[in-house]
């Protein structure tokens, strides 16, 4: 894992130090970087980040949950510290393989978790809907600022009137290999317009920009291409565990209509939370709302064998385990 992570290093949006890191091998041999935060025997939460993001994206949520949850985060292939696969390795199928591999590697045998995904991470969960490992492991799921199909036509980054025009413009945007360049004020403004609500703070924008700009243009374009042709509504329809949906009402990338459709199609939908005025980056824009929803799902659906909700906080976060794999 060679690349140096470019994320903010102080404040609430800086990634906390994990208890353990591991390298997970996916079905096609791809290597994935994963982190485990929080006490070992606490109820588990597994989080998958979105397009052009990385584990650092979950920082504020992890900070909140890690006190009394075992939180697993991983870098989707090509993002953060996970190396990019060959061109054939970019598909929703591969995303599902990766999630399943992480669940198997990071959780104890028989251990269950609440699985949350933001944007492409939500699509990862949808893509894995029919995997027996997910059905076994996931006690509940959270789909956060995501969509299952028709992204180019529904997005409102380019607010063209005609659906054909929007489809074309957003396809070009998703597949673009243009470098984003340094994190400049202009770049931040553009990112804020496209992905964040009007009320997001400079700190939040800075954190997002650093993460997004760290994603190589080739990886961005190849995954963008997958997003442009997405069709995962069938997965949503087969996501049988209790599932909650969260979306910002001012999301331009995956507008609220997607959340409503998913809530309509989910077999066991546990509510659609609309966050007024927020954009696409909900876990950074309002970490409390996202972690609160995850907490509630843990409370309602995840019973840790042998322990009550008050999991033994014997091991302080950061306490190193022997199990740790070398990740140099």
């Amino acid at each position, binding site marked *: 894992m060679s690349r140096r992570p470019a994320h903010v290093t102080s404040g609430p949006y800086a990634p906390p130090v994990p208890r353990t890191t591991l390298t997970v091998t996916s079905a096609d041999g791809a290597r994935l970087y994963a982190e485990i935060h929080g006490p070992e025997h606490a109820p588990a939460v597994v989080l998958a980040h979105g397009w052009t993001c990385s584990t650092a994206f979950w920082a504020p949520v992890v900070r909140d949950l890690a006190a009394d949850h075992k939180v697993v985060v991983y870098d989707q292939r090509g993002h953060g510290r996970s190396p990019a696969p060959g061109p054939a390795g970019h598909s929703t199928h591969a995303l599902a393989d990766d999630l399943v591999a992480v669940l198997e590697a990071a959780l104890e045998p028989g251990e269950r978790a609440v699985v949350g995904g933001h944007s492409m991470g939500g699509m990862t969960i949808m893509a894995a809907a029919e995997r027996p490992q997910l059905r076994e492991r996931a006690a509940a799921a959270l789909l956060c600022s995501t969509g299952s199909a028709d992204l180019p036509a529904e997005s409102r980054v380019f607010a063209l009137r005609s659906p054909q025009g929007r489809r074309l413009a957003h396809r070009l945007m998703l597949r673009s290999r243009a470098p984003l360049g340094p994190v400049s004020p202009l770049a931040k403004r553009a990112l804020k317009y496209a992905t964040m609500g009007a009320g997001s703070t400079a700190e939040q924008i800075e954190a997002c920009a650093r993460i997004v700009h760290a994603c190589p243009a080739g990886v961005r374009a190849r995954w963008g291409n997958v997003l442009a042709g997405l069709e995962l509504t069938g997965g949503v329809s087969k996501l049988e565990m209790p599932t909650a949906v969260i979306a910002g009402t001012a999301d331009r990338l995956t507008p609220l209509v997607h959340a409503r459709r998913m809530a309509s199609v989910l077999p066991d939908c546990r509510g659609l*939370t609309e966050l007024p005025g927020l954009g696409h980056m909900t876990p950074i824009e309002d970490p409390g709302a996202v972690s609160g929803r995850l907490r509630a799902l843990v409370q309602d659906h995840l019973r840790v064998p042998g322990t009550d909700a008050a999991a033994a906080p014997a091991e302080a976060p950061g306490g190193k385990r022997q199990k740790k794999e070398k990740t140099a």
Partner: protein
Amino acid sequence: MAEREHKHVRVAVIGSGFGGLGAAVRLRRQGITDFVVLERADSVGGTWRDNSYPGCACDVPSHLYSFSFAPNPQWPRNFSGQPHIRAYLERVTDTFGLRPHLRFNSEVHSLRWNGEELHWEVETASGPLTADVVVSATGPLSDPKVPDIPGLDSFPGKVSHSARWDHDYDLRGKRVAMIGTGASAIQIVPAIQPDVERLTLFQRTPPWVLPRADRKISAAEKWLHTKLPVTRAARRGLLWGIRELQVSAFTKRPNELGPIEYLAKNHMKKAVKDPALRAALTPDYRIGCKRILLSNTYYPALAQPNVDVVAAGLKEVRGSTLVGSDGSEAEADAIVFGTGFHVTDMPIAQRVTGADGTTLAEEWKDGMESLRGATAAGFPNFLTIIGPNTGLGNSSMILMIEAQLNYLGDFMRQLDILGGKIALSARPSAVKEWNRKLQQRMERTVWNTGGCDSWYLDANGRNTTVWPGTTSEFKKVTRQVDLAEYEVLRPPRKPVTAPVAAPAEVAA
């Protein structure tokens, strides 16, 4: 299920007119071949098979009144007659290989939703079957409406309806009473006037009639349209574009229609010289409120000496004497009803029983209500072609049908994507919202403000038939099925886990 052989199909289409055949083509193009087209008669054509009265023709130019996917460079006239339109539909049936799907003499007696199996149980005149999806393309102009006239039973002569013309009955030398002045009647009157001894026209409300730019399409044009398809497409595009531009006058600014009234009045004045007759034939409502009729021969026929216009509806029949509501009397040997169809009370609705055990007619007793003209709350996997609020006052219904076929296509696609045994049922909230917006837009349209009662309005005065916008707008809003507007129904789980009702919470 035991004793009778039970046939199951993916889709059952009811009707084989423009709507039903269009649906069949669309399904085949989407790779769905497991479907049947149920037809009560013994040939295709629907309205264009049933209506064969003398002079029957379409009042929309043929190059626009045809499927975009089945162009016909050989249309003989601008406004082709019924035989040509019917032949066109026969040809479409052959070209697209629809014959194997047709089930003639299979009138649908009942449709019942089975919530356990998630399919429709269809009883037809040719036996029962089940279907995952039902497409009702029964058409608004299919079941003739004959008013309940006291004493009609005592009439000794021939009684018929425009849509059920008896070609064996000879009208020559007869005294004929024509009831109604709608689109059919104004075509029948000039067609039979030269033959009959006396023609009495009972007119409750006079229509606005504009000249019809009808002519033979020349051999040169046909040749050009065949050799250079783009010319045919351009012709269609022009016909379409003109009509799209007219829409806003109908839907937003009825006052702009004034000059058209002037044209219509002039059109009448040219043919009718008698001031009393002119007065009787001049409508007192805004043009467009009722369907605008096109004819060059109607007014000249009325001016003939063997025609009487009674400016009143038919009140009762005493033997062979017809009494108008103004007290006038007329003798007749035959009565022809040009009184239209059951439009706002779709007859198939009585035969469809939905998920709650009520019929569509019961659900629609206060007026038809659908989602995007296609689906109704409580009737899963049931789509109507030309459903509520999809009619047009000025353009080709084929455009609307094709938009609805797009919706049908996406509906089938979504079912396939969702996969497994599944049904989509329109959410009542979505249906309500759609109709609230529709009716709000309807308030200022000429159909609601023009000062007339028309077949567009239902018994409560609500316009549940016309689309208050352009055809391109309708095409846009029916391009895709929005799953947020639908509930996904899955087969009830057999034993154990009772699913916990999950109230959709919207947290701040």
